């Protein structure tokens, strides 16, 4: 949160300076705002409205009925399960990675930073394929896994792994600049006052980074629930077993069940909207705290 927080402060400061209106005329200002709003309307709001419109096309009854389908319910359950596993793991990993990068100097630090960014840079399909290559039948561990009767690919563990891979930068990326900016002083103060490691972490460090952490969790959660590409490769599309919500939407759509597809889509969209609202609240809250 350091980046946005800082630039917001900076913008506020610039805005308060005298002479800020002298360069930009009213016309330019209006043109800029209109352009960005039109762009938003065409590309973001229109599709969003279409989703809900199509879902509710044939009335509320059919809309709600589509959620009674057992496969749909299974898909929702699977998505929530995956998110429930992936997000906490990412929190632990993110804090550990951010802590080691922000507070220590060690060999291979820049390599670690690069590696954390890798999942963002790599196409999600490739992320999925990595796991197929590792754990699939023809993969490195395929034979061994088969002998021990463990299934990873085309099963829930594969989906969890792929999702984890795709989402793990978010928490760490949020926390690294924040921790670097906040420094070590409060922790050191706590130690000189006699606090141990755990007490320092839970009473000093965690409260200090809580808003940044929450922001990272929200982003990570949104990606975990919405991920399509990586999950699609490893899931095998077994209806009711290994389809998450995005995959299930696709299946329904392929079957020309538009209402069903858009109903699930609307649910996913709602989740996203809720996430965005929470995110905005957090941003507002951190901006306020940063004063």
């Amino acid at each position, binding site marked *: 949160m350091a980046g946005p927080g800082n630039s917001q402060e900076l913008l506020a400061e610039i805005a308060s300076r005298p002479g800020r209106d002298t360069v930009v005329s009213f016309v330019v200002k209006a043109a800029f705002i209109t352009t960005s709003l039109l762009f938003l309307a065409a590309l973001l709001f229109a599709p969003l409205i279409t989703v809900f419109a199509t879902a509710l096309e044939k009335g509320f009854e059919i809309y709600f009925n589509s959620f009674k389908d057992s496969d749909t319910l299974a898909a929702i359950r699977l998505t929530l399960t995956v998110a429930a596993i992936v997000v906490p793991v990412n929190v632990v990993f993110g804090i550990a990675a951010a802590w080691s990068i922000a507070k220590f100097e060690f060999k291979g630090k820049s390599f670690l930073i690069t590696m954390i960014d890798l999942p963002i840079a790599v196409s999600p399909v490739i992320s999925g394929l990595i796991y197929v290559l590792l754990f699939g039948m023809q993969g490195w561990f395929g034979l061994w896994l088969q002998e021990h009767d463990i299934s990873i690919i085309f099963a829930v563990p594969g989906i969890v792994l792929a999702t984890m891979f795709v989402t793990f930068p978010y928490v760490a990326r949020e926390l690294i600049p924040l921790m670097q900016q906040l420094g070590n002083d409060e922790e050191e103060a706590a130690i000189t006052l006699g606090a141990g490691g755990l007490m320092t972490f839970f009473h*000093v460090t965690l409260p200090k980074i809580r808003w940044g952490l929450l922001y990272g969790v929200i982003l990570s959660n949104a990606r975990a629930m919405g991920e399509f590409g990586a999950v699609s490769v490893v899931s095998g599309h077994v209806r009711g077993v290994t389809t998450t919500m995005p995959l299930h939407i696709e299946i329904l759509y392929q079957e020309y069940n538009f209402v069903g597809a858009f109903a699930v889509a609307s649910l996913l969209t709602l989740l996203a909207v809720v996430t965005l609202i929470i995110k905005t609240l957090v941003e507002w809250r951190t901006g306020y705290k940063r004063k």
Partner: protein
Amino acid sequence: MSITLDQVTKRYQGSPVVNDVSLEVGEGEFFVLLGPSGSGKSTLLRAIAGLTGVDHGRVALHGNDVTHVSARHRGVGFVFQNYALFRHMTVGENIEFALRVRRMRTEDRRQRRKELLRLVALEGMDDRLPTQLSGGQQQRVAVARALAHKPEVLLLDEPFGALDAKIREELRRTIRQVQRELKITTVLVTHDQEEAFALADRIGVMNLGRLLESGRPDELYDRPATRFVATFLGAANLLLAKQTEQGIRFGATPVNARRIEKLEGGREHEVVAVLRPEEIELAPTRDNLRTNYIATGVVEELVFTGALERIRVRMTSGPSDAHIGSNSHVDGHNTAAILDVTRTQHEQRVFPVVFGQSVAIGVRRIHVLPTPLSSYTVCAAETAAAERLSQHPFLIELAGRMKTRIAKRIDPALATCQGNAQTRISGVAVIAAQVKVAKQVEWLLWNGAAEVMVLPSQAVSPQRVLIHWADDAARRSTLAVAASLLRHVPAEAVYVGILPESRGGEGQRPLGVRTLLDARSEAQAVHGLEMRTELRFGAAAEELQRQLNEQVDQMLILGISDLSQLSREFAPLFAAPAAYSMMIVYRPARESDEQAASA
């Protein structure tokens, strides 16, 4: 003793940031560590608190060795420059943190919190968040928080750094008051000398990782032992002078100042004199001076600052070439002899001066620094070589740090090393390392140089300085030179004692160890120099050479008391042009004896 540091060293990427610091702070004492940024003072403070580990040495609190005790269990109070308050906790929660860690009962915590808030004059602020307080108030909370668990030692790291002048003064008073009331041993780190004077019972001045001097503020101001302390604590004009049996002489002008302190040692030699700006008197003519005349000058700058008037006077006669203050150029062309003078309102009324006016300059008090290294004189047979050597980076660095000048001396006799020099050589003679270096060193020492520095062209500031003397007669002067040099070089000092192998080897060990310990304690007691010691067996020259070649960036300080020792004992050191720099210290045995006797 409340805090005892014994040879504390902290290295960062190989070079020492805290270099062999030994220090004792008494019970209830307010000690201020003063130094420029990067002098290692904050690192030292953190080492006392346990926030930074030490690479060498011991830290003891109240007689208990805590070198390997974690910061958590040392029980010190620490105040950070940027407050480091827990931003999500209220003032009250911040103060109670240390008590909550210790599981104190709620009522007792309340009680203690109230006491502390009263102590720092913040009653009723319990429920505020740190962000709702001003900087000064936040630092008060930080002080209260650091005192909550009744620590026996309070450490403050530039606590006023982020505050503006007015609040700074107010908080300074609060801290002094709190310290007096609790009688708590306190160490404060600052780069502000005014702050140090206002707070300290005792000041320790640090530079380049070394604790240069410590003492009462007035003592340090009146009688500094080093150039750095003289110029860092208040303003000072540094002038080169000749110490003679009659007194001090600036150029051709003898000064008979009543309050000149006597320096031991009979022979005439170059010294560094400190003239405080407020000790300088200006008068229309020499006869009007009520103090000792030193020169005439022209007023170059005049600034009115309220209580005082600051004047810069350019000396036109007298010791104009003796000035070695920081504003003189090292190349020697512009020895702009500018003296800083401050005068009170009263003095201004008695003798008002205007810009450009000619004045006679007198001095009330001169303090002579007890340093044997006064200035550098680059010696070479021809101009080009001297010019090249005077641009040597290490020499420029050294002279810059010592705030002294590099003079050039062209002496064709140096090529042949025959005959005598026209005038005696003063200051440290500097020559380039080359094949004939042994002869040159001998010639220079014969012609009055007391120290000769041999600089290889690629020499850099050393990381380790080896110290060795040929016999006991040279010990005292070698230690003095080593101490003076090492104050300006961020290097470790190692005394190498060498015993001949043939005479029983191991059987000699107790005697050898004894010599080492004597040397170390003398260095510490007389010169304030902390050094390591090493005992070796074998031929001195080979042993030294072997050590010097072990790693790069080393320097040798070699003391002799007889010129023949050079060729007799240390010839191998000069056989080939070396990669390390050397400083040869020579005091004739007779003179050393006299010095020892008078001491």
